[in-house]
């Protein structure tokens, strides 16, 4: 598939190749960096939606029960 893609790209194949390389680079770097940092920060970010309650909200939080 990739061979076919690159063969048929003609005079714009450099764009296709560079886009593919850019994506792989961005993806790889994000994955590496994401798994390198501290868990306290990740935990804080993950709990942001739950951290916005105020007294009014808290009263309502039991409505599903």
């Amino acid at each position, binding site marked *: 598939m990739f061979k076919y*893609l690159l063969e048929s790209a003609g005079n714009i194949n450099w764009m296709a190749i560079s886009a593919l390389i850019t994506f792989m680079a961005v993806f790889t770097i994000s994955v590496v960096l994401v798994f390198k*940092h501290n868990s306290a920060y990740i935990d804080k970010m993950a709990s942001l939606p*739950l951290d*916005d309650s*105020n007294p*009014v909200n808290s009263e309502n939080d039991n409505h599903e029960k």
Partner: protein
Amino acid sequence: MAQVEKFSYDNAIVRKFTYATIVFGVVGILVGLIAALQLVFPSLNLGIPETTFGRIRPLHTNAAIFAFVGNGIFMGVYYSLQRLLKTRMYSKFLSEFHFWGWQAIILAAAITLPLGITSAKEYAELEWPIDIAIALVWVAFGVNMFGTILKRREQHLYVAIWFYIATWVTVTVLHIGNNLELPVSLWKSYPVFAGVQDALIQWWYGHNAVAFFLTTPYLGLMYYYLPKAANRPVYSYKLSIIHFWALIFIYIWAGPHHLLYTSLPDWAQSLGTVFSIMLIAPSWGGMLNGLLTLRGAWDRVRQDPVLKFMVVAVTAYGMATFEGPMLSIKSVNAISHYTDWTIGHVHIGTLGWNGFLTFGILYWLLPRLFNTKLHSQKLANAHFWIGTLGILFYAIPLYWAGWTQSLMWKQFTPDGFLQYGNFLETVTQIIPMYALRALGGTLYVVGYFVMIYNLVKTIQAGSFIGDEEAEAPPASTWAVHTGKEHWHRWIERRPVQMLIAATIAILIGGIVEIFPMAMIDDQVPKIESVTPYTPLELEGRDIYIREGCLGCHSQMVRPFRSETERYGEYSKSGEFIYDRPFLWGSKRTGPDLHRVGGKYPDSWHYNHMLDPETTSPGSIMPPYPWLLRDELNTGNTAAKIRALQTLGTPYPEGYDQIAVDDLQKQAKIVADNLRKDGIDDDKLEEKEIVALIAYLQKLGTDIKPAPQAGN
């Protein structure tokens, strides 16, 4: 501990968007149901042009996408944005302007689309004055959102907000790119690009309307409301970072999968396929992140209708995003394209993902806005089951219909002839499936009314909190920052960086695909014999656009033996260089029309439009008697010629001055042909039908030695 600031959240704007979501959900779904019923009972248009399938189909899609889901997005964003940033919306005026502007646009769409005022671009049908209004309102929303982000009290931007930012910037780019058009009059314009280039840009837009209007904002909502409803953080915040960047980078490339086996160059089709398949990874990463958020809380899903709706929504997202890449594989697409399989696929997305996530949010949100409890859990559960059955009854018959019809199209006899040479046979075969689909739609509507009752009772029982009191440490506690920090925190703290990074990610795909197509002439080989439309054909083409014929008829013969046997020579990109807009279509409820020119006498088309059943017994195409009755408006013909000349169509200098004379001459030839076949009517040459016949007789004849229209 720093001092805390007291402030309040603006719930009034959230309530407005909530009500609009509920109301336009009903409208969008009911119009869809009427359209579905018309495929079983064509006379349900009541003989009125404004209620005929071709015109109400875009009304349904626009209402569902921009009115129902659009208001749903704004409802969810205005509530969650304030709370995630611990601040009130930036500007009350911009919030109000956004709300009323958006509703005015919906009203304009509801008026213009039934009137046949359309640019014929799927999901971008609205004409240029409304496009400008959309741009203004969208900018107001953006300023309000970024103003709110900039005055926030929370240092970091939660992942939901990245999705909102990516949505805003991408929709801006898409809306401008696909609506580059030259106005002819207040309600008519021609696109800057023609034929295959127009097709590529339209489906770059069309696919990403799904991606960045129906998906990314709803993923943002999922990342906020699912943890809220489950009362636990998202399963993996790390995964959500990768999900976001991978998704927005890849999504923008996938548009050409709507154009597989068409006249689009192979390299662009292949790019679309490759990136569509790659999309499975981030899509399923997001889906699993959503579902796994409920780990250890599945017992609550059994009781809580909010979680039930959300689980099915996320599951439907997973199904649709698995199916989408599969449909992008060329050999699968060869079967699925132009059939009801596609319609089934998109409705898994809209009814399941968008619909059910909206319902879950509504059931969660309204009791909070009104400081009360949901009126009835039982009714919400009933809605859940009726709606789920509705989705199943909707989608399964359409999958069945799609496979059946496609296989019938491709079936040859042992002697090498098409087994079902009459296209109509393949339609009448699946009408029972259309009836079942309408039943599914009815169930979904019934469930929706149950929800409305439940929510109205909830509202009546509560008291609205317009300004919800809150408190948070001021921004000054984190505004001064020094020292080393994690790379993504640097982006998260700066919305402008986030905006720029997201813009670069989505522009790369768009530029690589579209730039060569738009700028390099060699991508569309010229064919000497292809000529511009005559004024009469041009007017006929605009009637074809007005009536929404492309909703049921494609103009793209794919290079398959089953298609060249049925329709004729496969379509070449050079044949469409004067097509503004392109009219390839994406669904064949009726046969392809690209080679219909010269296939039937003029009188056949006349009788077919008067009553399709006289020429095609069993046809589900509605009659178009008004085309035989109404006189052709030639008031804009000269302006149309001038506009097309400006865009590069090689009409001779000063041709606009004699265009109407030419039009009348050709109309007389067509009218004389009709009279020869026994059709006589006063002022036949002045009727709209004559223009439409001239256009249909021109279709596909440029490259075949056949008699020209009217000869």
